[in-house]
């Protein structure tokens, strides 16, 4: 998808600052990307990967559980903290998780946009709006852990 189309989908994106960092790839989605998996699409549906031990439902609790399994715990602040990795879960108007972003070393965020490209965006607000809703939960873990 062109940058222009991304900017139409996410009206805050251009002003916040971003760059496209990969080609489009239908094989993985944002939650997979957040934990470092570029091979599988994670979703609690037949035909897709969903981690064992996590409720097979599209709920915030299930998403939080995924990241707890990966060593994260809920926190309040999205700001960069030395020695910590952070993720942010977005929810739509119905409270259903719609997106996950992962913080990178310089405090920016990386996101896989559906089946499209990976992007780096300067703020979490860059992707807030009609498409993904709002950031509802930040989680963090010690940065020595794997992606």
């Amino acid at each position, binding site marked *: *998808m062109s940058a222009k189309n*991304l900017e139409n*989908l996410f009206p805050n994106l251009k002003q916040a600052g971003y760059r496209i960092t990969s080609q489009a790839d*239908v*094989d993985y*989605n*944002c*939650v997979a990307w957040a934990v470092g998996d570029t*091979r*599988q*699409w994670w*979703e609690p*549906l037949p*035909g*897709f*990967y969903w981690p064992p031990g996590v409720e097979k439902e*599209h709920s915030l609790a299930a998403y939080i559980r995924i990241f707890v399994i990966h060593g994260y715990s809920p926190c309040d602040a999205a700001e960069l903290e030395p020695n910590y990795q952070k993720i942010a879960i977005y929810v739509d108007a119905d409270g*259903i*998780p*719609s*997106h*996950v972003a992962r913080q990178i070393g310089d405090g920016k965020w990386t996101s*896989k*946009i*559906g*089946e*499209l490209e990976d992007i780096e965006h300067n703020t979490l607000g860059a992707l807030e709006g009609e*498409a993904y809703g709002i950031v509802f939960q930040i989680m963090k873990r010690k940065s020595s852990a794997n992606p």
Partner: protein
Amino acid sequence: MNESVATIPMESLRLPLLNGVLAETHLIAEQSQRVEELFQRLADQWRKETAHLSLVVKKVMHPAYQRIIGLGPAAIPLLLRELQQQPGHWTWALRAITGEDPTLPDDTVTQAAQAWVKWGQERNYL
């Protein structure tokens, strides 16, 4: 044998029959063309409006996707052609229409698309 029928020249029987078959073939081709055009319009709309979504459950609930499923068996070769050109989340529609699933549990989206293309080739859809 009825004499009146026996005296009708064969040519006069063949021509209306041939015309009828041609008209029916033309009608089927026209309908097929209309289905294909509708499919392309719906598929383009669906891609444009859902490619950014991270949940397949939302993608497949899009009205355009549901209408494609509603096209029924006529959509099978069109869906398979889409998958042949580019892997995508069409397998849900194919499962819904055909009641079959040639994929393996651990398949990636790309591998699932390849399994469906093979399924279609074996059944002469492609």
